[in-house]
């Protein structure tokens, strides 16, 4: 199997997803199946082929250095699950 349970646990941790044991078992199998399936790409000779990350034919547009947005804090904070005065609030972080 491509993805063993430990790998599933590791990538779940990286993704900040908490999985129970049943989910870990199921997902390890499903992910392995999917990865086995995508590996048919190895049949393709890609020597001297550049990776294509975006098909847009645009040139990266450059913005002028203008301060345009005024104080937006009401909008920015309006959906916050927890806030105090003008801050977002989260459980204590220990550095």
């Amino acid at each position, binding site marked *: 199997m491509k993805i063993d349970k430990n790998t599933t646990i590791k990538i779940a*941790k*990286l993704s*900040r997803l908490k999985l129970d044991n049943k989910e870990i078992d199921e997902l390890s199998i499903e992910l392995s199946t999917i990865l086995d399936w995508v590996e048919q790409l190895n049949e393709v000779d890609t020597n001297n082929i550049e990776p294509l*990350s*975006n098909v*847009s034919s*645009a*040139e*990266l*547009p*450059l*913005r*002028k*250095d*203008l*301060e*345009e*947005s005024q*104080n*937006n*804090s009401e*909008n*920015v*904070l309006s959906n916050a699950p927890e806030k*105090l*005065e*003008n*801050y*977002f*609030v*989260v*459980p*204590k*972080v*220990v*550095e």
Partner: protein
Amino acid sequence: MNNLIKGKKHKWEAVIGLEVHAQVKSKSKLFSSSSTKFGSIPNSQVSLVDAAMPGMLPVINEYCIKQAIKTGLGLNAKINKFSVFDRKNYFYADLPQGYQISQYLNPIIGNGSIFIDLNEEKTKEIRITRLHLEQDAGKSLHDQNPEKTYVDLNRSGIALMEIVSEPDMRSPEEAALFIQKLRSILMYLNTCDGNMQEGSLRADVNISIRKPGDKLGTRCEIKNLNSIKFIKQAINFEITRQIDIVEKGGVITQNTLLFDTDSGITRPMRNKEEAHDYRYFPDPDLLPLRLDDKFINEIKKEIPELPDERKKRYINDLNLSNYDSTILISNKNVSDYFDEVLINHKDLKKSAKIVVNWISSELFSILKKNNLNIINSPISPNNLGHLIKLILSETISGKIAKEIFEEMFISKTSPDKIIKDKGLKQMNNDNDLEEIIDKILKSNSDKVKEYKNGKTKLLGFFVGQVMKESKGRANPKKINQLLNKQLN
């Protein structure tokens, strides 16, 4: 210079490299048009993009690109005509997108170098590996509440230049010289304000130790140092710590450390239980950045004279010492002030040393007393030049000059006006001076007798009396000459 550090058993060499985060001087953020002003109300300079609201997209700030190129040119570095913005993925409370837009495999600036002055004669090249553009994170406040962390995103998305050096430094002093020199180059270029207190310039320091000639040891990284003093302290502590471990038979484990400025010690960051895997990949919301020669050449034209060139000019054209030149160039504003004096008074070029002395002693001390920066000096470079010329032409005495100098500081006017208003011009006319001398000698005939009997020390007394009578305006050199003539 020998940089080896003596442990209990061996001599050790420290190997130090820096990663400096310099905030780009710009009005708006790297990918949004929010203000970059420092010290505003929390979350008041946060656009929908900066808060990573769903569906929001980044658009890059052209000026930040120009600033990075300008800095690259100032570091004699390669400007990459093709660069890519990548996502660096990790979770943190003040990282709204869940990733930082940065540059990984294809940074905008490649190899460069800067030179540090180890002493009067010796300079050392420190190689720059790269410079890339990236977003700053927000700010987490941990000490406001025992159970909560507060998040302010005002800083989130501000453009940073991450400047990475090769591990070319061998002592805390070299690291300090490097960051000082880098800071001064950035300030000359006007690409970063260099304000370390406000966090505009912060350094991560990589340190390892080895026996001279050995291969590199395992390094530790001290994060986010924001003063030159702390950089030196942290490095010193870390070198000692590492030597201690190795000499006791231990091994250094690669670690990310924080420096506690109160206790002066480094400690590992706590939230490191999982090894980071940043999963860099090109940001699909942004296309690669392609630069052409025209764009780069326009920026080249804007590159000002940089500290090294300026120093060379001071030494070669103005005959200043290395020491004096270094004092001037280490702060661009001081150096600009000095240059301004000479631009207004070309004839002072021969007397550049005197100009330096006035700036580094009188001007520095009065500015410091009044808590002023040289860019806000009430005494303009032009007026200081005037004053110095009045001294050189013996129109005023040095002592009077200092009085006038203080008056200039208060009234912000020219020395000429002060001299005229207060009648402070030096008396140089022989007849006028002889008149006063006659008067003094007459009213002190007893002392004249003593002098003639050999008590020549009294000459000073006569000079003093004449100065007093002239209210300090008499030219002391002339008084001496005339007194000598009359008494002998």
